[in-house]
């Protein structure tokens, strides 16, 4: 495939104007004739046996068109009412028991949402409460109540995930990484540090909550849904309804944000089952309160042991990670792999040992969340890096520089690093913040200022597959059929650029389809910061094929060799001879094929050995650094962010404006999680499950000064995803700056003012005692 002469640059998102004016339709804007509205009855208990469900009064309510309970599903042989990407451990409605407060037990479809809601109150459920477990320690204790006491139901799983559910325990899955000989290395290390780090569950908070419309039409199950993974949802529904995938059609309009919340199957099964039961289209649209208990970021406890030599080399690391995956596995078993190996960090460490566990508890399910386990890992290792440096009197920058990976050194999963830019990213971040290892915290009144650094590595899902099709029309315009999901990140703009420059077309001559599984080719999903790279590659391959076809058609017409021809502004011409050019449209018409067609299939290779976690962890490695200056009020513990520099490696920047916006978005995401975001549970009951009680960052919380270093190396001829990459360094960089300002080391996120003040008081008490 030949690249265009110069990369095309676009000014931001192509449909920004329409979006801002509210002219872009979302799934919730779809109205299908005869559509009903669904509501779900959810368990008030975190763990309880369902003794009985009596929905007769609800069924009798005027305007109610269908009511389903777990028992209705259990008795049917024509369906398989379970879903989940690894384990089929989640039922469309709970059957034998409920496993978290919020688990759906019954569903109603009615003429309007108010009637459906009223009907819920007429459903009588008798529960027998069971002992429950909420944190990983309790879940792993001897004699702990077991969240899933039935044998695991497996589906077609990911090739690279070893299903290791341990019977009679709450261990959902276990990932192992064994590199080198950690025991010996710890014995030989000059210093060994062992610390524990925790991150709480937090919420994605996409502006659009989960919603879909399902209808069954001439035997085809149709669902228009706000998902990041139309094909995963299709596979799920085909399995549930015991039909071929050809009989399920998923369409996906633009999303109002995803951040991982909309990966894999969520509300689609119950909507489709209700549509079947009612014989009418059914919409389900979760409230914000329901969204909070649908999927979360994993809370984690990480125990990390790191050995260093006197000359500041890291020689060994052993991590044990306990990811609280909640009541259902969702993609937890895969996430703990990425989060587990990520604890190896961006450092050249010859000996690494990781045990990473997904642990079932009676909390809402945890799943994919921007950063995908890497934020939790980076919080641990980048905090510990500074703890080690402080203890041994090293400069945190120099300590990192001494250990950051270079080309040819082995990453934690064993493959050689290539296209490494860690040192460049961290070095420039340090420079931009004005890092000076000798600098003392600056005190003004009760306020004290200091700086902090962090640098991270992140894999992208490997192996993975994206496919695309291209159609060149008889007017020379180009249509790309792709299942990439536009969720506000600018997928369509990025793909438009890549498609247009492949044939030297203008952007207004190119269209990108929305996902429609009846029409658009397969894509694994819009996740893992992979779209511009993976789907972009598939699109470029398809467009490259079209290009070849055009050159061959023109060669025949011009009686020239294809090698002597070039594509310029929608025409093929002998090199440097525009007088003899032929328009694409004329070539298409001349070919009598109606349109030129081509496919692009991108499938990355890799995967890890199940016993050692060695192999190809990622097709290439995403890299980012952050530098921050904070100001801490010593009287209150309150932290203000004065300056923030985000550095991220992009390979090639496809859309500079959106690359910047994605990176700024990561800063907002990161500072919220660093400073205050936390889902608070009491006995499994969420205490802050709404946007009045749960806070996300507002504009006024943004750092006073932001600088972005989106690093481009065009010559690398590669595109690195940046959707998540600059997020993980935010939390440890802020924590490290707070430590340098105050001497208070927080190891459990978030870094609240109260924790800082308690730390200051403890230090003061210690100092006066000494």
């Amino acid at each position, binding site marked *: 495939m030949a690249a265009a002469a110069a990369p095309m640059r676009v000014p931001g998102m192509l449909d920004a104007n329409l979006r801002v004016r509210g002219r872009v339709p979302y799934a919730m804007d779809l109205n299908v004739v005869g559509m009903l509205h669904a509501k779900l009855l959810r368990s008030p208990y975190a763990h309880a046996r369902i003794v009985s469900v009596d929905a007769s009064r609800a069924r009798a309510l005027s305007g109610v068109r269908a009511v389903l309970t777990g028992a209705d599903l259990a008795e049917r042989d024509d369906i398989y009412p379970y879903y989940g990407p690894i384990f089929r451990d989640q039922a469309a409605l709970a059957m034998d028991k409920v496993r978290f407060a919020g688990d759906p037990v019954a569903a109603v479809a009615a003429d309007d949402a108010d009637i459906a809601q009223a009907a819920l109150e007429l459903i009588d459920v008798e529960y027998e409460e069971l002992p429950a477990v909420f944190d990983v320690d309790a879940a792993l204790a001897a004699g702990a109540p077991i969240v899933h006491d039935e044998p695991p139901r497996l589906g077609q799983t990911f090739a690279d995930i070893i299903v290791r559910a341990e019977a009679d325990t709450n261990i959902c899955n276990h990932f192992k990484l064994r590199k080198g000989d950690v025991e010996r290395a710890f014995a030989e290390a000059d210093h060994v540090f062992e610390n524990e780090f925790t991150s709480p569950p937090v919420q994605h908070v996409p502006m659009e909550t989960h919603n879909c419309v399902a209808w069954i039409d001439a035997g085809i199950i149709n669902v228009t849904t706000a998902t990041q993974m139309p094909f995963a949802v299709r596979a799920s529904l085909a399995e549930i309804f015991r039909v071929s995938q050809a009989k399920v059609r998923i369409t996906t309009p633009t999303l109002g944000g995803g951040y991982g919340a909309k990966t894999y199957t969520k509300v689609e099964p119950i909507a489709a089952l209700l549509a079947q039961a009612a014989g009418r289209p059914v919409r389900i649209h979760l409230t914000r309160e329901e969204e909070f208990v649908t999927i979360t970021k994993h809370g984690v406890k990480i125990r990390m042991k790191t050995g260093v030599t006197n000359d500041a080399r890291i020689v060994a690391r052993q991590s044990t990670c306990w990811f609280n995956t909640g009541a259902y596995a969702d993609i937890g078993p895969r996430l703990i792999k990425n989060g587990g190996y990520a604890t190896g960090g961006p450092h050249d460490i010859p000996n690494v040992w990781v045990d990473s566990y997904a642990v079932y508890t009676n909390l809402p399910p945890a799943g994919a969340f921007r950063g995908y386990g890497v934020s939790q890992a980076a919080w641990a290792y980048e905090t510990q890096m500074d703890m080690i440096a402080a203890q041994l009197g090293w400069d945190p920058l120099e300590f990192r520089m001494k250990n950051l990976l270079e080309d040819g050194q082995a990453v934690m999963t064993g493959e050689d690093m290539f296209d490494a830019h860690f040192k460049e990213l961290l070095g420039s971040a340090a420079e931009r913040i004005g890092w000076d290892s000798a600098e003392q915290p600056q005190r003004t009144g009760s306020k004290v200022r200091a700086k902090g650094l962090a640098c991270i590595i992140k894999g992208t899902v490997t192996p993975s597959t994206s496919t695309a099709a291209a159609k060149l029309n008889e007017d020379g315009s180009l249509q790309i059929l792709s299942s990439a999901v536009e969720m506000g990140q600018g997928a369509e703009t990025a793909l438009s650029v890549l498609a247009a420059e492949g044939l030297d077309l203008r952007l207004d001559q190119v269209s990108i389809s929305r996902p429609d599984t009846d029409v658009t080719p397969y894509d694994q999903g819009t996740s893992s910061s992979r779209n511009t790279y993976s789907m972009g590659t598939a699109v470029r391959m398809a467009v490259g094929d079209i290009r070849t076809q055009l050159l061959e058609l023109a060669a025949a017409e011009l009686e020239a060799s294809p090698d002597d021809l070039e594509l310029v502004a929608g025409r093929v011409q002998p090199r440097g001879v525009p007088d003899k050019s032929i328009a694409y449209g004329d070539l298409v018409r001349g070919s009598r094929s109606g349109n030129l067609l081509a496919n692009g299939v991108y499938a990355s290779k890799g995967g890890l050995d199940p016993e050692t976690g060695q192999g190809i962890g990622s097709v290439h490695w995403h890299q980012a650094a952050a530098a921050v200056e904070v100001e801490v009020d010593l009287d209150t513990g309150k932290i203000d962010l004065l300056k923030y520099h985000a550095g991220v490696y992009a390979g090639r920047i496809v859309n500079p404006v959106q690359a910047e916006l994605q990176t700024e978005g990561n800063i907002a995401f990161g500072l*919220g999680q660093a400073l205050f975001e936390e889902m608070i549970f009491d006995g499994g009951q969420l205490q802050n499950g709404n946007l009045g009680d749960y806070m996300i960052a507002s504009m006024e919380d943004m750092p006073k000064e932001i600088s972005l270093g989106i690093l481009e190396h065009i010559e690398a001829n590669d595109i690195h995803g940046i959707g998540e990459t600059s997020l993980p360094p935010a939390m440890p960089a802020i924590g490290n700056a707070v430590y340098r300002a105050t001497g208070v080391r927080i190891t459990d996120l978030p870094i609240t003012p109260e924790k800082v003040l308690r730390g200051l008081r403890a230090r003061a008490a210690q100092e006066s005692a000494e």
Partner: protein
Amino acid sequence: MPGSLAFYHPTTLEDAIGLLGEHGDEAKVVAGATALTILMRQRLVAPSALVSLGSIPGLDRIEEVDGSLRIGAMVRHRDVELSQIVRARIPVLAETFGKVANVRVRNAATVGGVLAESDYASDPPAVFVALDAEVEVRGPNGERTIPARDFFVAFYETALEPDEIVTGIVVPVPAAGSGTSYHKFVTRSSEDRPCVGVAALVRLAPDGSAADLRVAVGAAAETPQRFPDYEALGRGHVLSDDIVGRVADAYAGAIDTLDDMRGSAWYRTEMVRVWVRRAIESARDAAASGPAAH
């Protein structure tokens, strides 16, 4: 049940009060609806009748009457924030309303609403209490006024009778030589409700001592907290670091602080200590540097 919620738009206060009498506990007054909507969504309240004040003329005025500002119940937060007369006469009031939530909320939430809701974690109540404001209410037996410091009774509970409606609040313009302040301290997002909020008024005598000192602490307990006995520690004295510290310590010791997601009781006590001090200092400095008279 669907269809069982009646929405009334009376055009006079008398009609509104009549509707409240008619529906009793089943009715809720609705103004900006920023609080009520959330409570209804969370099913914490389920009224069968909503009585809107939006069609009653005259409740949305800000006017100066006899050395006070009278602010109507339907005046929105944003209006107070931007009001020229409020900014000129009682700037701390404009500043405080400008610190509530975000501009979308402030464009809907009303002054009457924030009073009648009596949410412990609101900003304006502490300022009203510090400024000796009086709440005007109207009921079946006519009008009465309730001092702001007596108006807030407990969590979501006021001195209003069930069929009384807040019609406005009268806030005395601080005397010449006064300085005022309101410090909102948040522990989470900038748009969060306060962990503690402290309002202070200091009026300096010609000799530099505090002729008046008033301090009200919001969000730390069920209702705004004001302690005349501890204010007296500062009155008549030059507000030195020592004196201010004694007032702050007294407030910290006196308030039975509550525990919520914005901070534990221990932390709140410490924040009362910090922010009472800072609020008095700000008010003192404003009094010292401000215009001698207006």
